[in-house]
């Protein structure tokens, strides 16, 4: 079952095949729950988010477009949005974004295509994150993981709105460039 592609498993999940559903959950549960825990720091809330993420994947599998990225990033984006909604309801303060700096990328049980695609992206992004100035990295993590707007980041970091926007933009352009280099090397 592990040699089955992520996309095939997603299609199986959507069509109600129980073997595919089990394999899909097993393949992604550590990453989905891990992301929810990173954002929420609460086991019960993170499980609610992780469960809902799989339910949404099942309901909206038809909207998945492989041209726009691998299954894992699609699924994690769903988990992120749900976790941020929960965070806003709880009005909880996010954890220190510095803990995310040491993050490691590719999963040992990632699907074959994902290892080829997202795995490379993950390592590139990890390295690019490590080279960002600390203030840009904080701004980026607050935006990408906690859904903080530039205005909210300005307020929490005690900096003008324009500065917050510049930090987010500069960080994103560097990350984007790190992936661009990879594509150029591959001749894409």
């Amino acid at each position: 079952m592990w040699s089955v592609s992520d996309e095939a498993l997603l299609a199986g999940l959507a069509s109600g095949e129980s073997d595919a559903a089990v394999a899909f959950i097993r393949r992604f549960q550590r990453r989905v729950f891990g992301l929810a825990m990173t954002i929420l720091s609460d086991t019960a809330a993170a499980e609610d988010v992780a469960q809902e993420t799989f339910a949404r994947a099942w309901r909206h599998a038809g909207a998945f477009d492989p041209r726009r990225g691998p299954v894992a990033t699609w699924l994690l984006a769903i988990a992120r949005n749900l976790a941020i909604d929960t965070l806003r309801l709880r009005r909880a303060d996010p954890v220190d974004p510095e803990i995310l700096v040491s993050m490691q990328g590719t999963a040992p049980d990632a699907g074959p295509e994902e290892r080829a695609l997202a795995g490379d992206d993950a390592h590139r992004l990890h390295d690019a994150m490590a080279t960002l100035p600390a203030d840009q990295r904080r701004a980026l993590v607050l935006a990408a993981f906690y859904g903080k707007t530039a205005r909210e980041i300005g307020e929490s970091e005690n900096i003008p709105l324009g500065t917050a926007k510049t930090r987010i933009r500069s960080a994103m352009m560097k990350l984007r460039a790190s992936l661009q280099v990879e594509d150029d090397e591959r001749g894409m």
Partner: protein
Amino acid sequence: MNEACEATRELLPELALGILGGEDRARALDHLTACADCSSELAALSRAADGLLTLAPQHEPPAGFEDRVLARLRRERPRHRARRITTFAAAAALIAIVAGGSVWVGTAHDRKLASYYQGVLGIAHGTEFAAAKLETADGISGGEIFTYTGRPSWVFIVVRAPVSDGIYQIMGLDHGLNVRLGVVRVTHGNGDWGGTTTARMSSMSKIVVVDQNGQQVLHATVHHE
């Protein structure tokens, strides 16, 4: 790259991260419907933003997680269908009530509801509130549209699977004339957009959702009083 591109490029990192709101978001989406270069820049930035999420540490979920998810999927399958039917029935009832005095009203509860919606319409000089299901050419449900004719008139649209992620224009057909109402971005299978419009919503017979190549992906027939 022209001035509009330069202004949009400033906004794209925040749009890719999903933290851009309000007028900036509307302005960026508006430009993106007509600019392939900026759309491809957004795709590259979105790849970086989404890729970041794979860096989060993995964590084993609590024991029994897999069984609980499977049980939930089994439970939700019939309920999901029932809820959609109920929502549509409620919308249909609402349209019937809002359609006004010509509708036979059976119970005290219905009369109260009709009076309530007349009051709601009165707040913004409204003459009509309508809702319709958006469907693909194959008749598969892909969202809903709500329109209000008043001062101001407004439109609110919800788009979801099976529509693919992307940016779409919302067009209204007013006696054979195409009127552009707004732009909706679908991300991870969900999108919504709402805004005021100077278009006369009560004379829109059809609403269509069109992709960047001009292909119609969804349509709704709007029934008026």
